């Protein structure tokens, strides 16, 4: 296909056009979520709260405080505010109301919106009148204070009773800012000693007079290894990791031996070979949770195994297989359930590999006097190497994700695996970052194992090429 000088080779676009939809699909539903998960595991987007030099979102940053730092509150300011309410501030709405005070005199002052139930609105929605709400907290002062200006540190100029009808003269929306500095203990531990303003949404004010606070969360993110460290330090990480490895070490060899035997049975083309294929493949259609529950019902103290053992007189009382003291029995049950359920996947791959071996090769070997097992060892297994490689990669990746069977048989607490920990961190502890760290860990393990198999099981031809 030497190109003649002066003639350009036409680029075939069609294959690339065919790949394009697949690439888009993979990017949207595969690469994007994976990248998001990776970012969640290593990036804390609420790490530090910036301190500003003035109570204004456009102020200059004078320092930053980490989440959880304890603060002293130096001052507070409510800026009257007419713009769009953003999510960065905690806004309070205040009403200037007029009505009859608790002593009968007319009252005119500011009260927070939480104290007033608006019952009458103008056409454009502006509140015009309402009633004072009761205070629900037990032991709270039943009277509502009216202030001179819309601020709780202003002077109280009147008090008014609950359910009193009032007219609303004015509405003020305030954005709350606090002037804070890290307290002495925090500074001793390394926090900045800068003083600045922070929007109220991100701190939690405590104390009788609101003189103390702590940083609830920040707004500036940073890369951190905190979540990955938290995952490794978690009490359940070690057991989960160990159990996953033990399960793999037990299940994989047994499955491959079983699957190869099953595949050889099918390959032998016995009388009812298609029935063998159906039978061996049936477990593939069951969900792993269903299989887990099935085996749970078999191993439980009133289950099938105990009934059989008791029926034959081997034991007098039902043996408890699934308890905190019998962890190894739980692992054995999981191994059995996984063997039953997932061997067919491996078998199907090996069957297809066996189909690819030409019959002539095997017949020639038979003619030359090789016994059945010699044919298996010296001809079929070497030629099956690519299929075994594929099956190993697939099965190992699935084994890292084993989840439903473990939950069904062990309750998730006594025997735990990596996938269960991912689930528990999100659903139990609502810790999306650590759950992501676990998920990325499983992903990296899967990639590493795939890489390992591809190198370790390279055929001679690949090595030579």
């Amino acid at each position, binding site marked *: 296909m030497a190109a003649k000088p002066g003639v350009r080779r036409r680029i075939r676009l069609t294959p690339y056009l065919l790949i394009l939809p697949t690439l888009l699909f993979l990017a949207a539903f595969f690469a994007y979520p994976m990248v998001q998960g990776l970012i969640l595991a290593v990036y804390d987007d609420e790490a530090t709260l910036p301190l500003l030099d003035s109570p204004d979102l456009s102020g200059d940053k004078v320092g930053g405080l980490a989440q959880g730092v304890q603060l002293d509150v130096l001052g507070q300011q409510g800026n009257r505010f007419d713009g769009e309410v953003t999510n960065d501030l905690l806004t309070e709405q205040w009403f200037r109301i007029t009505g009859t005070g608790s002593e009968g005199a007319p009252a005119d002052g500011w009260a927070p919106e939480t104290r007033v*139930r608006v019952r009458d609105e103008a056409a454009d929605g502006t509140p015009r009148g309402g009633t004072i709400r009761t205070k629900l907290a037990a032991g709270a002062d039943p009277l509502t204070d009216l202030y001179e200006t819309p601020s709780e540190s202003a002077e109280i100029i009147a008090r008014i009773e609950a359910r009193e009808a009032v007219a609303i003269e004015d509405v003020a929306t305030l954005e709350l800012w606090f002037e804070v500095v890290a307290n002495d203990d925090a500074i001793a531990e390394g926090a900045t000693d800068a003083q600045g303003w922070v929007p109220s949404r991100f701190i939690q004010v405590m104390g009788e007079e609101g003189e103390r606070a702590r940083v609830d969360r920040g707004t500036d993110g940073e890369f951190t290894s905190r979540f990955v460290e938290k995952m490794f330090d978690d009490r359940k990480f070690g057991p989960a990791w160990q159990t996953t490895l033990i399960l793999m070490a037990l299940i994989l060899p047994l499955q491959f031996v079983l699957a190869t035997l099953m595949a050889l049975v099918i390959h032998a083309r016995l009388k009812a070979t298609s029935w063998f294929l159906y039978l061996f493949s049936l477990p593939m259609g069951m969900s792993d949770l269903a299989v887990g529950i099935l085996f749970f019902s078999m191993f439980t103290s009133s289950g099938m195994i105990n009934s059989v053992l008791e029926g034959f007189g081997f034991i007098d009382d039902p043996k408890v297989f699934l308890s905190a003291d*019998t962890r190894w029995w739980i692992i054995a049950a999981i191994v059995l359930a996984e063997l039953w359920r997932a061997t067919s996947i491996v078998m199907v791959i090996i069957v297809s590999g066996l189909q690819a071996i030409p019959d002539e090769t095997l017949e020639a070997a038979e003619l030359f006097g090789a016994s059945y097992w010699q044919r298996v060892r010296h001809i079929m297994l070497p030629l099956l190497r690519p299929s075994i490689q594929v099956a190993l990669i697939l099965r190992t990746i699935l084994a890292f994700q084993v989840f439903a069977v473990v939950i069904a048989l062990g*309750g998730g607490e006594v025997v735990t695996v990596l996938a269960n920990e991912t689930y528990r961190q999100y659903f139990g502890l609502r810790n999306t970052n650590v759950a992501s760290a676990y998920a990325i860990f499983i992903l990296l393990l899967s990639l590493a194992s795939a890489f390992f198999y591809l190198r370790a099981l390279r055929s001679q031809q690949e090595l030579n090429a």
Partner: protein
Amino acid sequence: MRTNSGLRRFLALLLIMTMFAAACGSTADDADTASQTSSDADTASQTSSDPAPDPAPEPAAAPDPEPEPADDGDDMGSMDATDAQFVSLQFSPVEEAEKFRTILGDIDVTMGEEGPTLDQILAGAGSIDVLGALHGTFPPLAREGALTNMVDVLDDLSADRDIAPAFVQSGLLGTDDFLHYVPWAQATYIMAANNDALPYLPEGADVQAITWEELAAWCQNILDGEGTEKCGLPKAGLFHRFLEGYLFPSFTGGMVSEFRSQEAIEMMEWMRDTLWPTMHPESINYEFMQEPLLAGDVWVAFDHTARLIDAFESDPEQFIGFPAPAGPEGRGFMPVIVGLGIPADAPDPKAAEAVIEYLTRPEVQGEVLSQLGFYPVVDGVDFSGLSAGVQIEADTVTAQANSPDALPALLPVGLGDRGGEINQIFKDAFDRIVIDGEDPAEALDAEGDNLQTLFDETGAPCWDPDPITDGPCIVKAAG
């Protein structure tokens, strides 16, 4: 003949590949459904209504629009409850959901899971009108200002019904006047026993006023007499409530501040050496104690009223209910509160209010009690028509709450969205000492440090039965 077998083989392989594809496709969903909480794996992001509910609606099923004293809502949506998007995090197991839908009649409900539903509301999806959830679900929403103040709804409802003031207090989440949810139902945890276990009661013990030591002796007697353990605890279920609300308060007088006290250490040693060995070893798998009770595997059990109801209903002659045991500091018990809240971005708040009005009617509360085992929070519910099983539970719940040494332990407050961690700390402390055999003093001290860190990081003050503090709760130092 040969073409026939070739065709058959091709069809067989096609069948296998289809099953393979189906199996591999289903593994993605299994991660959601795999939990043994047996909740339906409904996506919380459904914005379309559920299919039409069951036929034969209850007589009380037709919801009337709520009469508003002052009409300040003009274009805020209809007042018809059937238009509301109602998501319930309770009653998700299939049978309970069916009963609940029957009670609701024409009102649609979607069952959800806590984590995804919270994330959905916090992301501002604006698709939920009413959220029915446990008390502990609301603090993460309150922290972000994602809830509507229910104080006006309560005010309107209070015109014609009395809602339990204690639960309204819980709904304030520590504030003076921001009500985060309208109390909807309450439940608690009680004990159940098979009549066959009664002959083994220790001398002089009154089962309706039993102590923890007597319970241990009882279970030991059963073990000795029957040769096998027949007491059970739901270790795979709501076990953290058992530890937080029943065990620790009864022995230490508090839930968290005395976590590593000498009394707590002795209690855990007693648990490890005396009580846990009498528990059925399969307790690690028990989630709903009604199942082993009905199977006869367990004769004495502790669990949530809704998870014992089937046993009492199926065989009321065989089982008795009794209040949780008392310890040196009292009879600790934990009331569970379920509330109805309206997210701040609800598309149809008026319809939401109509749903809440319907669910807080005394007759509907009575239906929820008799069908689902959750107790009313309003006065005026007719208790006369209850079935035998529910009656047993109702009597036990009342006896427990009214016992002279009753020590109510409330749900943890102020932990925001880290409420799950405190449950984990209690469970870990138990596992380390009782299952793994670690030294009790060291394990409680280490977990006590975790508890203190949790309080320091969330700023949560102590709550009943611990003395209320200003500022983060203090877990007293060991010894």
